């Protein structure tokens, strides 16, 4: 764990993630007490005003405060991202681990299902299903994203649990007479936790991006504020071509930041799982170079 926290990537990533989580949790409180502005209030005296003065990040075409919206949007975006990732990951675990660990007919059926869902084109299907369910709220959007997002992970988990199921320690525990369920939860799953964490982070980025993409297409809950709906509103009001950059840059940047942060944490997870990657980091190389130079060896 300490090794995990040592790299700058993980630390930066966790800090940023933590910051946005904080925003998501305390956002409403923040906007009310710190910023002092309701993200939905319209300040008709400041329409599409650039940053400064009363509105630190400027206002939208509707006189709504961009900063307050960005803060409020953290909750919407993270909500969809986390929920979708949770659903997707849970399904992936359910299907993948069951399939890999139990094998046999269960495996054949689940594997076929996984492969079929995997080849169904994701975004278009998402669009179509979400399109049918339009206007039903972030819950449904997260649900749809999650429901379509599991097969990749399930496939990986299946392969992994297949290999774990044949590891000696599992065989040993089985010979001790452990029950299958206990084996799955206490022996197999903990081993996949790194992989699962990594999958979850990936899925979260995917979920946030997918929400933003769907919102951009108008498939969203427009009574909720999320970064996606902000970009959509800006696009609808031609904010880009009108140069109202303060309106559409912050939400896009936030998405990019959170994505980068999750990816950075993921680096750490990957390096934890794959020491070869760890040895290939810049700090490791630099240290080696210094040592070599100190010894005067190696031209």
């Amino acid at each position, binding site marked *: 764990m300490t090794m995990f926290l040592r790299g700058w990537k993980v630390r930066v990533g966790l800090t940023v993630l933590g910051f946005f989580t904080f925003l998501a949790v305390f956002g409403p409180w923040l906007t009310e007490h710190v910023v002092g502005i309701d993200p939905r209030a319209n300040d008709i005296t400041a329409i599409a005003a650039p940053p400064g003065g009363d509105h630190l990040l400027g206002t939208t075409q509707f006189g709504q405060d961009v900063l307050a919206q960005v803060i409020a949007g953290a909750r919407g975006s993270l909500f969809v991202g986390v929920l979708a990732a949770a659903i997707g990951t849970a399904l992936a675990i359910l299907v993948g681990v069951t399939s890999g660990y139990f094998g046999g007919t269960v495996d054949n059926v689940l594997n076929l299902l996984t492969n079929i869902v995997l080849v169904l084109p994701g975004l278009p299907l998402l669009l179509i299903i979400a399109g049918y369910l339009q206007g039903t709220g972030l819950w449904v959007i997260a649900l749809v994203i999650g429901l379509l997002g599991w097969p990749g992970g399930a496939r990986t988990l299946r392969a992994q649990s297949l290999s774990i199921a044949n590891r000696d320690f599992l065989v040993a525990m089985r010979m001790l007479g452990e029950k299958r369920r206990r084996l799955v939860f206490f022996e197999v799953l903990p081993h996949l936790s790194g992989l699962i964490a990594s999958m979850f982070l990936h899925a979260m980025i995917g979920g946030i991006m997918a929400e933003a993409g769907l919102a951009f297409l108008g498939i969203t809950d427009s009574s909720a504020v999320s970064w996606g709906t902000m970009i959509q509103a800006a696009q609808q009001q031609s904010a880009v071509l009108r140069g109202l950059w303060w309106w559409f840059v912050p939400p896009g940047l936030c*998405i990019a930041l959170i994505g980068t942060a999750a*990816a950075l944490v993921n680096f750490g997870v990957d390096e934890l799982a794959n020491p070869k990657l760890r040895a290939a980091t810049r700090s490791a190389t630099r240290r080696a170079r210094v040592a070599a130079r100190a010894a005067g060896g190696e031209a």
Partner: protein
Amino acid sequence: MTTTAPAAAQPRRAAKAARRWRFLARRLGFYLAALWSAVTLNFLLPRLMPGDAAVGIIERLERVSGQQVSPSAVESIQRLFGDPDANLLRQYFAYLGQIVRLDFGVSVQSFPTPVSDLLAQSLPWTVGLVGATTVLAFVLGTGLGVLAGWRAGSRFDAVVSPLTTFVSSVPYFWVALLALWAFGFLLGWFPLSGGYDPDAASGPAFFLSVLHYGALPAATIVFSAFGGWLLGMRNMMVTTVREDYVLLAKAKGLSPRRVMLRYAARNAILPNFTGFALALGGVLGGALLTEIVFSYPGMGYLLYSALNQRDYPVMQGVFLLITIAVLIANLLADSVYALLDPRIREGR
């Protein structure tokens, strides 16, 4: 473990061929099953979901004409678009029959234009734009990934990898918006919409205009897609570079270039390649948002407009086409992977 005695090679080979066929049959079976599921899903979705096509048309007609569609017109439109009470099973078989004949029906929004006409109109654009950019992004990303992974820990790697992480985390439609604003609107270097200059009807002028119109969307797709390839390739390279055969290749005194390309990259690229084939399969549905931002006349845009108007026949047609493309790409990935990796080719 199992060794083939040379004497037994002949019958072995025949057996191997037979096994290969059986394998192919199995795979084909899977693809058929997947196709059938997609087709069935395609059939069921519009029927399970609330709302019908007529509403979409009426709403849109009102908007376009600016007049309330009169009650008698509403009735007419409902009459034109199907009898929702018909027997579901019969409908299903009729639908399957249609699909087999590649008859996707008639578009609702462009009544009575056949869906296949619309598909044929959009397909080349998407295949051209997204296909080319997918290849480009793959080549670029993989190439840079080889370098970054080969010199893992170097300054190049230390700068490129985190930067790429950031770049690939940026929502791509947002990048597209920014690009459109900067290069299309402010600088005016590129057109803001469309796929070609309609006045440059043919010949090289047409071709040039296609390049010109496609440049900006292509650049944004490449921009947001190459990072994934880069990072994937880098990590595979880092792992592969530490393999003994790479060490041995170095020990053999081969030139570093050769070791990097023929030994390390050649092996490291295998997983990326599967991803590439799948990405090619995703080409048709992949760049939907980009197409919308740039009003590019492709499949994504078609699907989007169909969706907005509940043009089920078009939606189904697009979806089916995309699914078929993905399946073909999977098949391709399977076979080409086997070509690239002898361990799989021989079926161990």
